């Protein structure tokens, strides 16, 4: 039986981060992962991440994955792929299935970073082919390059449901609707708005009554739910679809920890069965640590920090570093972690209704129900100002931990301040040069450049554009409103696709002046 200092189960963002941290202190570390490639879910995250610089904000998930792998490889972290840890026994001994044999390993410390699995929900016809998890759809699209279907209904308006809906749209699928049984959209408002403006409608509170079809999904019937979870008679709607995606939450895959005898708790806020841990991620069994989604459902950014904390803690417990160094390093990481856990969507605030932002602005109810701001509401926020000439219009109205826009502007037009969750404010005193760096930097695609003085009677609007078939300069198409409604003719006057924008293309359109506060998207004319 091979013995190592540290065994890590799972080579996702948290497991790899833990391995890197431990390896830096010299621990003999081995990482097992049952998949054929490392990186966990990071490589299917093609969107830009929220956060600040230290959290790798505005970098796309798969690039963060590439950086992690490179770092791990440079340090010589041993990652064993296609290896399934099937048991965790007393004295930190594990059994691993590798090829056609079962091998035993013993770790002086163990970090479990197994992540989470998708929840399912039952309805008539849910076992038909064509009903899939949203995560599965994302794997098919972004890892395997296969469309899960052509016409899709998304159940679930959390960030997974919203992000995957957008990615389906990017791949050319027709997303007929996003529905949720909750009365409010669960994910970030900016994620909802970027799909709403492409014309995808939200139905809340709605649920699936029936998936139709005999041997595969051919349609779906949804209905509105009342406060007692019954369908409101007459509210039924039918869509012809070939795929139904379920984005109804994740559950920690904590079975190995339960098997090892760790004290467990059932916490709905963390997604289900999780181990009871201390601030270093150590479970009730000395020497067994956890990090990432298996210790409570969160995001990849926080999982990576948790991984580092656990890796350092494992190193300390084996005497590879002093208590002082551990305290110092952990304190830094805890700071980074707590700044990510601020704002309206903080783990501690799940399920609470928030009516006002930290600054005291009313939270848009329209956004929470329909997925977009009404024009009147938009004008209330500090990022939306009227000014002469070109200026940014920031439709960012919820306190989320994210601030790349502030760093993007070289001229100081955008201010968030010390507190990372504060709403971005446009400083009218500074001169916007229309460079578009903020538009491309915003992971929520919530920044537009508006110039009301473009030409007499016409305004220009620069929008972030990440769909396929980039519009061409000179073409004329349709200006769409915040929920994809057709508003006016729009002429493309500039298309910018600089490398520094990282594939968020900037499309500038010319629209009639009275449309400058209404048009927020562009659609090509049907050929």
């Amino acid at each position, binding site marked *: 039986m091979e013995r190592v200092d540290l065994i890590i189960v799972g080579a996702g963002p948290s497991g790899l981060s833990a391995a890197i941290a431990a390896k830096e202190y010299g621990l003999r570390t081995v990482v097992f992962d049952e998949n054929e490639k490392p990186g966990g879910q990071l490589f299917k995250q093609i969107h830009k991440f929220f956060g600040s610089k230290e959290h790798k904000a505005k970098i796309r998930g798969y690039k963060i994955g590439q950086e992690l792998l490179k770092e791990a490889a440079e340090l010589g972290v041993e990652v064993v792929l296609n290896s399934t840890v*099937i048991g965790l026994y007393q004295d930190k001994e594990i059994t691993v299935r590798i090829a056609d*044999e079962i091998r035993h390993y013993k770790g002086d410390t163990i970090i479990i970073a197994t992540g989470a699995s998708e929840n399912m929900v039952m309805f008539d016809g849910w076992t038909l082919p064509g009903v899939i998890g949203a995560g599965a759809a994302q794997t098919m699209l972004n890892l395997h390059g296969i469309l899960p279907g052509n016409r899709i209904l998304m159940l679930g308006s959390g960030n997974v449901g919203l992000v995957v809906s957008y990615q389906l749209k990017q791949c050319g699928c027709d997303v007929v609707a996003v529905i949720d049984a909750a009365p409010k959209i669960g994910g970030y408002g900016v994620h909802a708005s970027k799909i709403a403006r492409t014309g995808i409608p939200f139905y809340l509170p709605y649920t699936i009554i029936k998936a139709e079809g005999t041997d595969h999904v051919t349609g779906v019937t949804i209905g509105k739910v009342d406060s007692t979870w019954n369908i409101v008679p007459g509210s039924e709607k039918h869509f012809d679809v070939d795929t139904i995606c379920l984005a109804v939450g994740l559950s920690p895959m904590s079975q190995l920890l339960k098997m090892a005898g760790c004290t467990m708790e059932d916490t709905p806020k963390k997604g289900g069965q999780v181990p009871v841990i201390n601030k270093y991620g150590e479970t009730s069994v000395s020497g067994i640590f956890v990090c990432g989604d298996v210790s409570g459902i969160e995001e990849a950014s926080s999982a990576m920090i948790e991984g580092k904390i656990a890796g350092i803690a494992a190193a300390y417990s084996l005497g590879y570093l002093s208590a002082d160094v551990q305290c110092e390093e952990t304190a830094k990481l805890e700071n980074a972690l707590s700044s990510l856990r601020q704002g309206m969507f903080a783990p501690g605030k799940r399920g609470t209704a928030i009516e006002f932002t930290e600054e005291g602005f009313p939270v848009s109810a329209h956004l929470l129900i329909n997925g977009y701001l009404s024009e009147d509401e938009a004008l209330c926020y500090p990022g939306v100002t009227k000014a002469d000439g070109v200026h940014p219009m920031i439709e960012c109205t919820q306190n989320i931990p994210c601030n790349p826009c502030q760093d993007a502007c070289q001229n100081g037009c955008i201010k968030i301040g010390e507190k990372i969750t504060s709403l971005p404010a446009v400083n009218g005193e500074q001169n916007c040069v229309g460079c578009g760096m903020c538009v491309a930097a915003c992971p929520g695609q919530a920044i537009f450049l508006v110039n009301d003085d473009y030409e007499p009677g016409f305004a220009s609007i620069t929008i972030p554009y990440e769909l396929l078939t980039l519009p061409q300069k000179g073409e004329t198409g349709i200006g769409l409103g915040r929920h994809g409604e057709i508003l006016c003719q729009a002429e493309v006057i500039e298309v910018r696709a600089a490398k520094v924008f990282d594939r968020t293309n900037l499309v500038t359109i010319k629209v009639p002046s009275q449309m400058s506060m209404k048009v927020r998207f562009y659609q090509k004319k049907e050929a």
Partner: protein
Amino acid sequence: MDCINERNTDIGTFQPESDDAIIVCRCEEITKGEIRKAVHDGMRTLTEVRRYLRAGMGLCQGQTCAKLVKNIVAKELKISPAKLEPATSRAPMRPTEMKILANETLEGVPKNE
């Protein structure tokens, strides 16, 4: 967990519901009605339901249905799902063929060599 000690709590008689025929555990093809009936037959823990019906004991080892079964049982018992202890976790965590399970490598040398 509390309900283990409350086996005599009156949960009423089994009442058919319109969606009882829906399959919950896909691997073992166990329906919602069967799970609800099992509770009325006296299966008041998830471990008991598993042994009685084999729900969650198929290929995916309950990865898909464990939470669904838990919610159905909790609703039938009129308690919060958080009060139900999940079924025992034991190796192998993933479906593993017998010939591989038997092919253990100890001290770096496979047994069968």
